[in-house]
């Protein structure tokens, strides 16, 4: 059986990045939960920081170059996606949105996705729900119920959340993504030329 592909999109702009840390943990939780189900998974990480120039270039020229083309290809063939952005000015980071803007509109249609965000304080906690979730609903992604927001304090040993500490939330989100991924046929990359109707059909349409 071929391994499932989990693609991690990390919109963190600093290095090291807490966004990348959260993204990696979500990916690990997903891979572990898949392993428990007997499903092997391999992880591809897309660091938007490395693609920043190419993303902006594509907004101006309309074509993807270099690593951006590879990232788009990986997402189009993903069985599951972990998407995490830092919070900038009450929403997802501009680079994260620009990356989404240059995706083909059907790239994530039906793809299981877990959403995450990082920010300085817990006051931004709902950004996953009021900003990220509508964006991915528009893309037609199959977003799992648990979104994970990590504030700076969440990274402390005990965290600030007594009810549902960060590791719990990460584990639960990973479980949910794994459940969706395991329950589906492996993604088949649909190429530009795979679904072209014959010209007789086009004429008759």
């Amino acid at each position, binding site marked *: 059986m071929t391994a499932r592909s989990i693609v991690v999109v990390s919109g963190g702009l600093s290095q090291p990045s807490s966004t990348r840390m959260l993204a990696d943990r979500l990916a690990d939780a997903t891979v572990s939960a898949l392993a428990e189900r007997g499903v092997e998974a391999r992880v591809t990480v897309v660091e938007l920081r490395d693609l920043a*120039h190419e993303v*902006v*270039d594509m907004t*101006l*020229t*309309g*074509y993807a*170059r*270099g690593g951006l083309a590879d990232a788009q290809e990986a997402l189009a063939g993903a069985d599951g996606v972990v998407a995490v952005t830092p919070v900038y000015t009450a929403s997802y980071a501009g680079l994260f949105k620009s990356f989404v803007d240059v995706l083909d509109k059907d790239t994530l249609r039906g793809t299981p996705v877990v959403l995450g965000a990082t920010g300085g304080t817990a006051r931004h906690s709902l950004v996953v729900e009021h900003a990220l979730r509508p964006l991915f609903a528009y893309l037609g992604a199959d977003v799992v119920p648990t979104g994970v927001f990590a504030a700076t304090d969440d990274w402390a040993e005990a965290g600030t959340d007594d009810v549902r500490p960060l590791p719990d939330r990460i584990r639960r989100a990973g479980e949910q993504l794994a459940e969706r991924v395991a329950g589906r046929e492996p993604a088949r990359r649909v190429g*530009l*030329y795979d679904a*072209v*109707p*014959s*010209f007789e059909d*086009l*004429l008759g*349409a």
Partner: protein
Amino acid sequence: MQFGIFSVGDVTTDPTTGRTPDDTERVRAMLTIAEHADAAGLDVFATGEHHNPPFVPSSPTTMLGYLAGRTKNIVLSTATTLITTNDPVRLAEEYAMLQVISGGRMDLMMGRGNTGPVYPWFGKDIRQGIPLAIENYALLRRLWEEDVVDWSGKFRTPLQGFTSTPRPLDGVPPFVWHGSIRSPEIAEQAAYYGDGFLHNAIFWPMQHTAQMVNFYRERYEHYGHGRADQAIVGLGGQVFVRTSSQAAWDEFRPYFDVAPVYGHGPSMEDFTRETPLTVGSPQQVIDRYGAFWEQVGHYQRQMFLIDHAGLPLKTVLEQIDILAEDIVPVLRAEAEARRPADVPANPPSHAERVAAARAAGKLPAATAAAADHWTGRTAEDDLDAADAATVR
């Protein structure tokens, strides 16, 4: 192999002088460029069609009709003719008129157009782009091939007993290309009819271009027009050439950096590495373009965009001279040397198409104006009838 230039007719401020030509100056510059290309010995001049500033060429057949009278050898073409927003009846008439006026020294390239507002301005819906391209082109072909057409479809009023005039020259319609960058449906359309396919690669890595061209080639063979490697392929490209590479880079960079199409995006270094844009010496252009066939097979037409981004007319004319003297003869010889004998060297000329139609029995032995089926038979028909009577 043919080599030509195509213009989008953009009115752009020259960033080195701050000067902007007006529409009249730009249209006249396009005419001068085409006449110069003819005199210099390039094979093709093609004009775009646009209906929004900053582009001036809204009326290709007016421009090409004038050029037909002013030039001697160059093939006059389009890049592209909007098959979606133009009425196919008008296209049939206008391009048949151009074919007659130019003595068959023309062809044309269909495209859908990618400027959203142009569709509603002409009463069309961009979401219907592909269905419009398919229905309109199917009608256009019938109007050229059949003397009297009854037709109804989704996108225009029905026709009853309609004859498009003038009839195509010698009874053979113009050769048609289909241009598309991303839509395999259009490559499929070109293959279905056995028409030419041009991939305007100017913003795309050659790998993408090769995939699209090879898809067209496979489908061309599928539809029985010949082998895949015999299909008629064209590529777009763009160059800026000076004697030395450094001189070319220094002179072109200010234009590249602020050009509406690629300014403020990728660096010229990145863009020249990843797309067919070649800035450098004639030998560098020869090396780059002389290698494209390795990815797309032997192709019949290479078009260069050279008069954009605010480059002054004098510079554009110098580019034409360098292309014609130092680049095209070498590339043409190289292409001819490696071309398999049974792969067409060039797109079919009008004379070749007439000969082929005659050989296939699709034309009367002596070409006559076709009967219009309204006023009765032509004199030639009557002669044939008289001959038949005599034999009997």
